[in-house]
């Protein structure tokens, strides 16, 4: 196996690739802050002098590819961590992993990389993209809904999310619609929902779209219809939607109020440092730092023995705030999934809260296709 | 055969009939002046003849060819060129380049992607000649936008001349050209007489009566009289509608 150029020196260099400008910057910043929180807490990751280089991919895949090249070829980093978005991941996976450098995705988990195109140098601490949608599908199925209204933006991830939902939901649909990417006003869709009176609405509206939808949903007086979503109502959008989102449901692998010591340390530390409630973006990046720390420590700082390093990463020997965490054969996590609900927290801020566990030690649907 | 034949041409802007059933026959080699009050429709007629404006009815023939449906560039290629009343040049080009483009158009073959046009001596030489005819050769290398008003008017004429048309439509070529120079200008046109047929719109009656072989008078879109300069000059209808008393004094 290739030994990347930076493996032999005695500094541990980590490159973070996140979207730090434009509207999705809120997500990128959470992830960056989550990673830095862990790095700061641990100090020297794996006992090595640690250097972290943060780059902004600006949401542009070609630029991200270049920045990734820059990290591996010029800066000789040992790990690349990131990104938020699938299209960015697709752009950087080749330049990073082809040099033998380890890439850890802390959010994007595209199906190809989980399945046929799985890659020994690629790990993720998040999930496979479909999984959160499957959680909602399973919940809808369990509730016995038979008339769910599906609404997602018109692009690849939107289509995947409807497919993911329908993986585990077998009931009928009141409508399956695709909205324009970046849509501002949902009055037309809300009118349809009001007209159809479905059992529930399932949606996937990341970022500003989600904020608009949630606000308008409650303004249109539709709060009576259950609102199931993924990546729509979370800690990055709740500060803007506030009460309008309270009670809305989502699927996730974690929530800030989970009751375990590791989580307490993480959430309290994050709130103390950044004055905001962390979301999954922060948690998964936090875990990436913990993962690197554990693996590097295991190999005693010798990054040239790649087999040993990969074995150490695979062990995933750290305490994740989400509880159980292990890697499947495609280097995607095997973890539990929950139904979470938006609540107003005791400290006055807004966050999600675990309502019930939906899947236990859930393996994604693509792992079988991985020949690794 | 006539050079330019106009039959029953009409044009309306909304309710306003600007040219109303205009018929004209311009003989080869003659200078045919069109005079008339402001807003009578002279410029509109020229625009219709040159193809810049479509017509609502009627026909135009150049020689024996019906050109009513042709576009402006196509008419130019057949030898019908015009000058503009309100100066219309290429401001960022030098005076010479302005004219050279007209020469190039006449020669055809502008889909040449190679060769440096600025070095084509033949083009420049022909352009310089046209400039000289308009009395502007001393300003060849000046950008058109930094010419004075009168110089602009000359450039306008030089461009029209450089297209070497068989019929030339001139819309107030003398406007803005000062006294002494106007005389040379008239003399120049006189010299060109015979080389092409000209339709001349002018409000400068000295020039019209010196140059024109025949004069048509356009009032409210209709031709009210056509005749020799002498006949027109003494036509009471024309005096009342257009010439007024100024000419009497002159």
């Amino acid at each position, binding site marked *: 196996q290739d030994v990347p150029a930076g493996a032999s020196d005695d500094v541990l260099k980590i490159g973070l690739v996140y979207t730090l400008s434009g509207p999705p910057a809120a997500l990128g910043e959470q992830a960056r802050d989550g990673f830095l929180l862990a790095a700061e807490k641990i100090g020297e990751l794996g006992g090595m002098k640690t250097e972290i280089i943060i780059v902004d991919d600006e949401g542009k895949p070609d630029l991200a590819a270049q920045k990734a090249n820059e990290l591996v070829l010029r800066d000789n980093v040992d790990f690349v961590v990131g990104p938020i978005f699938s299209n960015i991941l697709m752009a950087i996976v080749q330049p990073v992993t082809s040099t033998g450098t380890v890439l850890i995705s802390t959010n994007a988990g595209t199906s190809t990389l989980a399945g046929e195109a799985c890659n020994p140098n690629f790990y993720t601490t998040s999930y496979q993209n479909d999984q959160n949608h499957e959680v909602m599908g399973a919940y809808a199925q369990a509730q016995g809904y038979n008339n769910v209204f599906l609404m997602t933006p018109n692009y690849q991830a939107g289509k995947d999310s409807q497919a993911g939902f329908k993986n585990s939901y077998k009931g009928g649909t009141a409508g399956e619609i695709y909205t324009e990417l970046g849509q501002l006003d949902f009055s037309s869709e809300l009118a349809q929902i009001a007209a159809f009176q479905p059992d529930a609405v399932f949606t996937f509206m990341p970022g500003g779209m989600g904020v608009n939808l949630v606000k308008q949903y409650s303004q249109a007086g539709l709060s009576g219809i259950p609102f199931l979503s993924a990546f729509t109502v979370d800690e990055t959008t709740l500060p803007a939607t506030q009460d309008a989102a309270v009670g809305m449901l989502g699927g996730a692998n974690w929530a800030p109020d989970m009751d375990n010591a590791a989580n307490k340390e993480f959430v309290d530390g994050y709130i103390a440092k950044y004055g905001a409630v962390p979301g999954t973006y922060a948690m998964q990046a936090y875990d990436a730092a913990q993962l690197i720390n554990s693996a590097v420590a295991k190999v005693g700082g010798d990054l040239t023995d790649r087999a040993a390093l990969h074995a150490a990463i695979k062990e995933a020997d750290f305490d994740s705030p989400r509880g159980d965490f292990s890697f499947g054969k495609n280097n995607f996590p095997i973890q539990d999934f929950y139904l979470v609900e938006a609540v107003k927290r005791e400290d006055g801020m807004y966050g999600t809260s675990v309502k019930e566990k939906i899947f236990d030690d859930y393996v994604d649907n693509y792992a079988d296709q991985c020949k690794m | 055969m006539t050079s330019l034949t106009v039959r029953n041409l009409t044009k309306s802007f909304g309710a306003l009939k600007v040219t109303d059933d205009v018929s004209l026959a311009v003989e080869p080699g003659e200078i045919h002046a069109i005079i008339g009050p*402001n807003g009578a429709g002279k410029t509109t007629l020229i625009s219709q003849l040159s193809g810049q404006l479509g017509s609502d009815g009627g026909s135009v023939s150049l020689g024996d060819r019906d050109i009513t449906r042709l576009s402006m560039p196509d008419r130019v290629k057949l030898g019908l060129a015009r000058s503009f009343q309100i100066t219309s040049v290429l401001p960022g080009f030098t005076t010479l380049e302005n004219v050279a483009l007209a020469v190039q158009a006449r020669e055809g073959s502008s889909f040449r992607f190679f060769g440096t046009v600025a070095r084509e001596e033949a083009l420049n030489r022909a352009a310089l000649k046209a400039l000289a005819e308009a009395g502007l050769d001393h300003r060849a290398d000046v950008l058109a936008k930094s010419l004075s008003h009168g110089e602009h008017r000359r450039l306008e004429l030089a461009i029209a001349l450089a297209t070497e048309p068989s019929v030339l439509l001139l819309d107030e070529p003398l406007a*803005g050209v000062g006294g002494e120079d106007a005389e040379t200008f008239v003399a120049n046109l006189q010299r060109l007489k015979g080389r092409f047929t000209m339709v001349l719109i002018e409000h400068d009656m000295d020039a019209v009566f010196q140059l024109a072989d025949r004069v048509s008078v356009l009032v409210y879109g209709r031709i009210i009289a056509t005749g020799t300069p002498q006949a027109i000059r003494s036509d009471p209808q024309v005096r009342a509608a257009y*010439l007024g008393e100024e000419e009497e004094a002159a």
Partner: protein
Amino acid sequence: MLDVNGLEAGYGDSQILFGIDFRVREGEVVTLLGRNGMGKTTTIKSIFGLVKPRAGSVKIGGKNLTGADPHRIALAGLGYVPEGRQIFPTLNVEENLRATARPGKWTLQRIYDLFPRLHERRRNMGNQLSGGEQQMLAIGRALMTNPQLVVLDEATEGLAPLIRADIWACLERLKQEGEAILVIDKNVDALTRFADRHVVVEKGRVVWTGSTPELLASPQVKDRFLHV
């Protein structure tokens, strides 16, 4: 009224005016004469501050307004009929007249009386007028600012003889009403009927000034500008 002293100006690197001196007194009609490209328009533009003078002074009513913003010069009592008309194409005739109007004895009605043609076309857009109509409009527009000194740069270009005669009559009337006029025009014979003094510009310098009788008596100037 207007006092121009040692005016120098130009465009970019090229200097066009090399010291222009002349004055227009209250109620006086003065002409600027000269061949094409000698600097007449440039003189007017530098008076109005549209071209910034490089030297010399422009005083209006005794106030030094050299190189002031154009609107201050106009507000000091100068009305402008620019060369080439400069009609506002996106305004209709009436709007063209009203947009920059200032109160005084010239009203919309008086302009329409002077140019009935404009009344007929009052709803036409500026760029849908014949050349002559635009010229009438430019004159009307300047009068609507009710100036004490009207500056006309080739204001009769493109006008039919009949209308041109009307303009001269109008200018004579203005003069009788005590207004001052500075005019550039190639119809010098018509000007001699009512202009008081003439200023001949050549290559950016004043080469001759004199009264109308002096002009008529001076053979070489007369030769050049009057074709009688």
